[in-house]
C-alpha cells in the first residue's frame, strides 16, 4: 500500500508544500500568484480554485477560532526501532525533516474551538516525510481519539498522507489497527468523528482511520485512494481514466459524503457537529 502513495506523493524528494518567495506559481494553473494573497485565500488559487497542500500547523490555524488551539503531546518524536537504513539512514531522514519543517513529526493534535464548538483535532502534515504514518502519528492520533472519548468531544481529523512509513515497517502497519481500535471505542461511546480528506490521502491512512468517519468530507480534487496510481497502472497494464481516485470519484463511488471547499470547511464542520448534537 505504501508503495503507491509514497511515489505518487513524491515522497522521495520531500519538498515543502509551498515554496518560499514573494511570488509563486499555482500548482493547478501555473499562474504566478502573490503569496500573501494566496495565503489570505487559504492557499486556494483565486484563478483556478486549486487547493494547495498546507502544513498541519497551517491547517490548524485555518480551522480553529483564533488562539483557541491547545496542542497535545507536541514533543513526541520518532524513534528508529529497526535501525532502518536504505540509501540514507532513517535517523538522518528524521533529522532533515525536523530541520526543514521545524516539527517533530507529521501531525498536530490538540483541542480547539471551531466556530465556538470545542473539538478534539488532528491535522496531518505532508511536509514531514510525506505525512507518512509511523508510531508518532499513530500514537498522537490514538491519544486524541481517547481524549475525545474521555471528554465527549467531537473529533476532527484532517488526513494528508502518502500512507505508511516504510522505515518503521511492522510498527507502522500496526498503527492502522491501533487507531482503528481506538475509534471503535470512541464509536461505542457515541462519539462523533468527522474525517476530512485532503490531497493526498492514500495507503494505510485511507485504509484505517481516514475511512472511518461518521461523516467523511473531502477537499475538491484531492487524490484519495488505497493503492497509488503507479502501482495500479503496473498491475492492470492500462491507463487510468480521467479523474480516477479524485475526491469527486470517491463521492460518486459512495465513499465520501461531501466535497467541501476549503473556505467552507469550518462552517461545514460546525453544522455537522450541531446535527449530531455534540
Amino acid at each position, binding site marked *: *500500500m*505504501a*508503495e*503507491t502513495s509514497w*511515489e505518487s506523493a513524491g*515522497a*522521495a524528494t520531500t519538498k515543502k508544500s509551498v515554496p518560499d518567495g514573494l511570488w509563486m506559481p499555482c500548482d493547478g494553473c501555473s499562474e504566478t500568484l502573490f503569496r500573501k494573497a494566496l495565503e489570505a485565500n487559504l492557499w486556494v488559487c483565486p484563478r483556478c480554485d486549486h487547493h494547495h497542500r498546507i502544513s498541519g500547523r497551517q491547517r490548524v490555524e485555518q480551522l480553529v477560532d483564533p488562539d483557541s488551539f491547545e496542542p497535545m*503531546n507536541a514533543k*513526541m*518524536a*520518532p*524513534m528508529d*526501532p*529497526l535501525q532502518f*537504513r*536504505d*540509501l540514507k539512514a532513517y535517523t538522518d531522514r528524521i533529522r532533515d525533516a525536523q530541520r526543514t519543517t521545524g516539527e517533530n513529526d507529521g501531525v498536530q493534535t490538540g483541542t480547539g474551538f471551531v466556530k465556538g464548538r470545542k473539538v478534539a483535532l488532528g491535522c496531518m502534515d505532508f511536509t514531514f516525510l510525506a505525512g507518512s504514518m509511523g*508510531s*508518532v502519528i499513530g*500514537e498522537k492520533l*490514538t491519544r486524541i481519539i481517547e481524549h475525545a472519548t474521555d471528554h465527549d468531544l467531537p473529533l476532527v481529523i484532517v488526513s494528508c498522507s502518502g500512507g*505508511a512509513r*516504510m*522505515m518503521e*515497517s*511492522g*510498527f*507502522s*502497519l*500496526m*498503527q*492502522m*489497527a*491501533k487507531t*482503528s*481500535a481506538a475509534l*471503535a*471505542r470512541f464509536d461505542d461511546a457515541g462519539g462523533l468523528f468527522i474525517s476530512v480528506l485532503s490531497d493526498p490521502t492514500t495507503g*494505510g491512512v*485511507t*485504509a*484505517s*482511520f*481516514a*475511512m*472511518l468517519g461518521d461523516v467523511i468530507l473531502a477537499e475538491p480534487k484531492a487524490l484519495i*485512494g*488505497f*493503492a*497509488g496510481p503507479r*502501482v*495500479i497502472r503496473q*498491475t*492492470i497494464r492500462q491507463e*487510468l*481514466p480521467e479523474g*480516477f*481516485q479524485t475526491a469527486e470519484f470517491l463521492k460518486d*463511488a459512495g*465513499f465520501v459524503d461531501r466535497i467541501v471547499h476549503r473556505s467552507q470547511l469550518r462552517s461545514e464542520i460546525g453544522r455537522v457537529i450541531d446535527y449530531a448534537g455534540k
Partner: protein
Amino acid sequence: MSTPQLVTLDFEEPVAEVQRQIDSLEQKPDAATFAEEIATLRQARDNLLEKTYANLSPWQTVRVARHPQRPQTLDYVRMICRDWCELHGDRRYRDDPSIVTGFARIGSMKCLVVGHHKGRSTEERIKCRFGCANPEGYRKALLKMQMAEKFRLPIVTLIDTPGAYPGLDSEERGQAEAIAVNLREMSRLRTPIVCCVIGEGGSGGALGIGVGDRVAMLQYSWYSVISPEGCAAILWKKANEQTNTAAATALALTAEANLRNGLVDAVIPEPHGGAHRNPQATAERLQSWIVDSVRELQRLAPETLVRLRFEKFRAIGSVAH
C-alpha cells in the same frame, strides 16, 4: 522428502545437486551395492538442507514463503479441519475466491475459518488474483466473522497475501474502506480470534483479517508494511536481487524479527526445509497452536477478551516523549 517434482529455489541448488547424486545411484540396477554411499549422501543432503535453512537471509525467507508448493489455506483446511462447510459471498456484490470463509471443526472445536487463498493451478491463481483480495473479500470475511460472534464461535484466520488487490474496480468499490472497517470491527468482536501468517503477510491486505487476540507466524513466512520489492523500488530506486535483499533485511519482516519486536505473539516452527517439504507436520503444529490458543482465550469473559485485544494493539509503537 525430496520428491522429483519439488521445485528448487536457487539457493537450494547445492541440496538438489546431492539429491541428484542419490537419485542416480538409486536408479542403478545394482543400487544395493551403493547402500552405504547412498546413506552417506542422504546424511550430507539433510545436513546441507538444515544448514541452508538455518542461515536463510530475510529475502530468501520471502522466497520460501512464496514457494509454489507451499501449503495454502485450503490445504490446511483439508489437513486440519473436519466437516468443512464453506460459506460464500458478501451479500453485497459477489463472492471473492481470494478469501475463503467457512465453518469447520478443528479437533473437538467448532470454529469459523477465514483465510486468503492464492490458488494452485494457473487458472485458479488467476481467479484468486494470486491471493490479492478485493473489497468484497474483506466484506465477506467481516460478515461471516460477525455471524461467528453471534453464535459464539471462535475465529481462526490464515493470512497469505502479497497485499490487497490494486485495481480500478477494487478502488471504486472501496478497498480502503473495506480494510478500515475490518480493523475497527475485528477489534471489538466478542469472540476469540487467532490469526496465523502462513505465507505472505503483505501490509494492510494482511492486517485486514489480522486483528486477533493471538497472532502467530509460521517460521518462514513474512509480515511487513510493504513487500521488499515495493520498498526497494521506492527507497533504493530499483528492485533487483541486491536491493530486494537489502530491503527485506531492513524491513525486519521475518517471523523471528516480528516476534522480537513484539508485533506477533508466537512463531510456529516449520519442518526442516520448510512447510512445503512436509505439509502434514506443519499442519499438525499449526493445529496445536490454534487449539491451545483458543482454549486459553475461551476462559476469558468477552469483555476481558475485547479489552485485552485492544490493549495488545494499543501498546504497539516506538516513540520518544
